């Protein structure tokens, strides 16, 4: 059984990240960035990736990374979720890093670890781990043509990792022939874009089955660790709601003293405690290459995604009118949670995966 607790170093890491985020990127500031039309916070990302070295947590030490692995990255993601932080950590430090680890690409991993570059896997954010789908990009030599819709964390990436029928390619994002078309997204804090490639030049990272394996590794890492981000989202929602109902008076009582609310929040706390165990299990399996990883990942998405949504919905509802306003940041979490429930496949999709994995056929 994986270790489901947080180690001392992980708790220290959490404290450092939380402190930095609450100083540099409180939710109110995220909201202000979203209103400005471009939520991406390059300064915050530089702090996280380059200065604190957190983009390289899962990069092997020989490439300048932390070598610490996915459990620690999961802790960072919990805090990023809690802060609904608009940085491409999941896309670059998790998904792209897992892809590049699978193909052992020294150069790019070294750049990622140093915070010198940001990478994104050119796959729709809604793609679940599983059998590869037909690539929408084709390669003619090293020139790639095609489109990929709804890609997360690619808008500000330096390098795109592009699956094609002919293997996996790296394409510098500012190369002529690469178009990035921002979408209006439900989740204001995780920008998506459509990618269009018109004979864009790149270089091959892997071919054949190795390419498919690398993509699968990226999607699995993304799905497994998104659960930790969702846990963080859920925790913020519960904590913020508890604080609000403690201090909001109606009928001359704190509304948090009404038993119906207390019971709902207790139920939510129970769910979140479970999501924590499930997310830790997924991160732990991923970190040790446990054969249970596919089950743990599907479980994580089938369980944690709905918990985050539930927490955000309760947060909006139990804030009453104020929770329904634009000015309160609760909606950022609601939108992040609901979009995250589609990212890397819906809970329904992951339950179907589990049916196969644990022999519960339909």
């Amino acid at each position, binding site marked *: 059984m994986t270790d489901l607790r947080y180690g001392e170093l992980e708790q220290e890491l959490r404290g450092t990240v939380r402190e930095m985020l609450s100083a540099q990127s409180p939710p109110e500031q995220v909201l202000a960035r979203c209103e400005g039309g471009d939520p991406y916070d390059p300064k915050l990302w530089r702090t996280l990736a380059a200065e604190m070295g957190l983009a390289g947590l899962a990069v092997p030490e020989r490439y300048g990374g932390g070598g610490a692995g996915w459990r620690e990255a999961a802790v960072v993601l919990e805090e990023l979720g809690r802060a609904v932080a608009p940085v491409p950590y999941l896309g670059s430090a998790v998904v792209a890093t897992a892809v590049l680890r699978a193909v052992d690409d020294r150069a790019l991993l070294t750049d990622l670890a140093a915070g010198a570059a940001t990478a994104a896997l050119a796959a729709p954010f*809604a793609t679940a781990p599983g059998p590869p789908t037909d690539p929408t990009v084709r390669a003619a030599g090293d020139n790639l043509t095609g489109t990929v819709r709804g890609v997360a964390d690619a808008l500000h990436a330096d390098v795109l990792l592009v699956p094609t029928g002919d293997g996996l390619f790296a394409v510098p994002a500012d190369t002529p022939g690469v178009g990035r078309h921002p979408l209006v997204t*439900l989740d204001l804090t995780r920008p998506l874009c459509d990618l269009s490639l018109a004979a864009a030049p790149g270089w091959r990272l892997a071919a054949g089955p190795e390419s498919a394996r690398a993509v699968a590794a990226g999607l699995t890492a993304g799905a497994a660790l998104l659960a930790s981000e969702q846990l963080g989202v859920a925790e913020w929602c519960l904590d913020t709601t508890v604080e609000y109902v403690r201090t909001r008076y109606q009928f001359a009582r704190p509304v948090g003293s009404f038993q119906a609310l207390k019971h709902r929040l207790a139920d939510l706390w129970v769910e979140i405690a479970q999501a924590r165990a499930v997310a830790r299990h997924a991160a732990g399996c991923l970190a040790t290459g446990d054969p249970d990883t596919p089950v743990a990942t599907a479980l994580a998405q089938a369980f944690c995604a709905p918990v985050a949504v539930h927490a955000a919905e309760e947060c909006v509802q139990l804030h009453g009118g104020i929770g*329904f*306003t634009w000015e309160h940041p609760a909606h950022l979490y*609601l939108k992040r949670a*609901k979009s995250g*429930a589609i990212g890397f496949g819906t809970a329904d*999709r992951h339950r*179907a995966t589990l049916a196969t994995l644990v022999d519960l056929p339909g």
Partner: protein
Amino acid sequence: MVAIPPPPPPRPADRPGPPIDPARVRQLVEQFLAGHDPAALAPREFLRARFDAGLAWVHYPVGLGGLAASRALQPVVDASFAAAGAPDNEPRRIGIGLGMAAPTIRAHGTDEQRRRFLRPLWTGEEIWCQLFSEPGAGSDLAALATRAVPDGDDWVVTGQKVWTSIAHQARWGLLLARTDPDLPKHQGLTYFICDLTAPGVEVRPLRQLTGEAEFNEVFLTGVRIPDRHRLGAVGQGWQVARTTLMNERVAIGGGAQPREGGLIGVLAQTWRERPELRTTGLHDAVLRLWVRAEAARLTAERLRQQLAAGEPGPEGSAAKLTFAQLNQEISSLELELVGADGLQYDDWRLRRPVLVDFAGRTPGYRYLRAKGNSIEGGTSEILRNIIADRVLGLPSEPRVDTDRPWKDLPR
């Protein structure tokens, strides 16, 4: 976003007129149309004349737009006018006036007030809004803090109101204000009609998580209201407000729905038209919601049949509760069903819609807007309290707020 207090005691009915049947009422409409060609008259003139002929709301008293007839005849009148191509008063746009202000003024207004306000209200010349909720008084409306202090023949009002639909277009507001902070909270309230064009009234848009601003905040700073615009006696504000809120609940109860009316129809249509989205797991979820939506529709229909038969049931609060739950669950499932498409939104720019357009926008909009359904017009929590207390007769929770002076209550 307010609690709904208990129903008001029945007010003595206005004198009933002579019995009128559908045939007679159709005849009256025909006579009216013979003298007032809708194609020739300006809409406003036509509507004024219709009001004066007692064909506005036939159950209102004679002289106030009605014939003192049965409310059941109103659809006959409306249908006759519609068939003749007559202009209507855009009832959805002036819903607060028709649904809440009119019954309140009718029940509690002086004769002068009824004469002054009902006609332009009905014709749509004057739009009304409701100035009840405050930042500190949502579910606990009776705790509101906006103060009205007498000064000569006027009252001077200062406070902040929120969740005010259509205030940016309204001429008049139904205002509930505190006139005596030394009394327990329900007793120190007085009800006013507030002129939104008066000095000291500032209306600001209040933006929702959908990006739209359907509502407003209204800041009242030293606003002078003449005493003749007081509705009901000083200190009787809560009793008057009951009339307003009861009618709000009835208005939310809504009209008859065909099968798959409402959001379930949107979901079912997507399911039918996009077979590539279907999975066995989502199929079960769609069917479960279809069943619940159809049950809710039949329940609303049963309530309507009872009301029509003069047997009002307590299902009104339940209908709103169910409506909110279903809207939220259906729109949530719809987003999951459309998957990747659900990651997008149509437009975050600040807009000022007068009506909610659930069907015309994206699944993401429906999901977000439906969150308001369990807050606006009485939260689902308050509705459950109402059902538990008044329908089931369960014992009250210990109360700590009803006997003490308002000014001493913790908040």
